[in-house]
């Protein structure tokens, strides 16, 4: 707002972007699990200034989550093991959606199940709700039938899951990939081949921390998901690997974004939009600030449309 006063109107860089069938005012979304259901942040930043928000992951039924301690800090990051606690589809529709419908920004609902059927059921029910602009499928959940291995770790399992959900979801369907893989490209390809509209890269990386005095894990479930600036180089690499292989669906880049420069790194690496996660804890107004910083960067570098940045990395090859 303030910055548009500094310069003539016509110079304002175009920030809108399209990703996975959804048009966004600008490329900055907030990440699942770090922004609640939006409401709590209404007093802290202008939701209308954001490209969009992604809700906490929803499952068909409410879930209780894991015992505490659930989080701990690490070097430039944090571990969490919330255990996918959430209110369930019904309570979401009843209690959270009314606010989201009028919050003034795009709403993606992150969802998951513990079985194939739960995924399909959950996707179908959420997609039917008014006020939901799109779905983001969290495939980093333990597949009980496969000995607890994440659904999203095997390209074949993942492809089947995407196909099944795609068949019932008539809204934009994004798939959020797990970084606990040696081959992110195959996972992205499995999504593209089975009808996903976009891939979100990345979810948290499995990690752990130990309290040496008590000799116990700092997280009750032993392992937790690592997020924050620490993982940015890994996330950026995965985004670029997928982009380089010309997988034919767009990418939403996630992982350790703290400021506009970080966000632009993801755009250059090939993301069409980004999500801000842990940084919303560090600085609850950061997502709005990041929009401003991207705009300032565009002005300073003479970029008239943020789309020019997407995939514009020069590798000299």
């Amino acid at each position, binding site marked *: 707002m303030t910055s548009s006063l500094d310069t003539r109107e016509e110079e304002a860089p175009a920030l809108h972007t399209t990703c996975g069938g959804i048009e966004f005012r600008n490329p900055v979304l907030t990440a699942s*699990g*770090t*922004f*609640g259901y939006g409401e*709590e*942040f209404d*007093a*802290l930043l202008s939701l209308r200034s954001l490209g969009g928000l992604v809700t*906490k992951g929803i499952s068909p039924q409410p879930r*209780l*989550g*894991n*015992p*505490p*301690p*659930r*989080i*701990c*800090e690490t*070097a*430039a*990051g*944090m571990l*969490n093991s*919330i255990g996918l*606690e959430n209110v369930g589809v019904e309570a979401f529709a009843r209690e959270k959606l009314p606010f989201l419908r009028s919050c003034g920004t795009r709403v993606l609902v992150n969802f998951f199940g513990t079985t194939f059927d739960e995924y399909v059921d959950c996707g179908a029910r959420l997609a039917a709700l008014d006020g939901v602009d799109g779905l983001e499928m969290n495939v980093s959940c333990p597949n009980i039938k496969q000995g607890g291995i994440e659904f999203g770790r095997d390209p074949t399992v993942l492809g089947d899951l995407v196909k099944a959900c795609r068949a019932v979801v008539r809204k934009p369907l994004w798939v959020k990939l797990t970084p606990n893989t040696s081959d992110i490209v195959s996972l992205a390809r499995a999504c593209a081949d089975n009808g996903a509209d976009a891939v979100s890269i990345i979810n948290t990386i499995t990690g752990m921390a130990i309290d040496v005095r008590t000799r116990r894990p700092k997280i009750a479930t032993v392992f937790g998901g690592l997020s*924050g*600036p620490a993982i940015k180089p890994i996330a950026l690499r995965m985004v670029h690997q997928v982009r380089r292989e010309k997988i034919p669906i767009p990418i939403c880049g996630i992982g350790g974004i*703290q400021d506009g420069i970080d966000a632009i790194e993801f755009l250059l690496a090939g993301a069409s939009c980004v999500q801000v996660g*842990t940084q*919303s*804890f*560090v*600085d*609850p*107004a950061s997502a709005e600030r990041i929009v401003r910083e991207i705009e300032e960067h565009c002005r300073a570098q003479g970029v008239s449309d943020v789309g020019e940045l997407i995939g514009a990395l020069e590798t000299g090859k």
Partner: protein
Amino acid sequence: MRYFDARVIENRSLGGGYFVLRLGGCESLTGSRPGQFVMLRGDWGRDPLLPRPLSLLSVAHEGRADLLVKVVGKGTALMERSPPGSRVSVLGPLGNGFPVPSADVADLLVAGGVGLPPLFMQAESAGRLGMANGSEMLYGARTSRDLVLLGEIRALGIALRLATEDGSLGRRGRVTDELEARLDHWRAAASPRRLRIMACGPREMLWAVGRIAQSCDIECYLSMEEQMACGIGVCLGCAVAARTRPYLYVCKHGPVFPAAEVMAYAPAASTSQSEGGAQ
């Protein structure tokens, strides 16, 4: 609840790693309730990354807010070194706070170590309502070095009883020993006022206070701590096992809980005692 920049206007060391950080620019904290807290972060880059939860010690006019902090790690060490003029980000006031003082209730405010701030503010608020002299504060710590702001507490007009584990000041022993003694006294005195306990301090102390309150059937509130990331109920990190729901959140449903709500999952007395004693 607001998110804003404040400035350190005074940083007063109390010795023993304790210091009072006086912040200016905290107009949005006016009207905060005792027991509420803020998430605070200095201008220190990414190490540490997350803001730190700190209880309000006192909130005055003209946007002044005081925090009492003890150095335990990186974040608090950086705060201790923040000179006047330093910029800090503040998110608050957060959480629920203690029940308001009431004329027909005598409050026993039980503070352990750096658990003092919310009870200090509660006493201050009782004083403002003219109810301080009905209540008393029991304040315990390891040594006399860990008992801080004694003059300031007395100035609030509340009776103050101290306990130190090494006997260097007040009763030798734990603050819960003092609590038991005072409960005996109050029962003997057969005061017409109903008794109520509010406590903040190390977890073992809280469990012990909760058990005492339960055994005497006294209304009791405990201010809990958990690791926090967001402070506003979105990360779901600060869960505590509870009675009415599987989990409640310290930042959103607390930090102050009716003891019965959280005592269900407290360890048995013996374990906790020996754990505490092993230190």
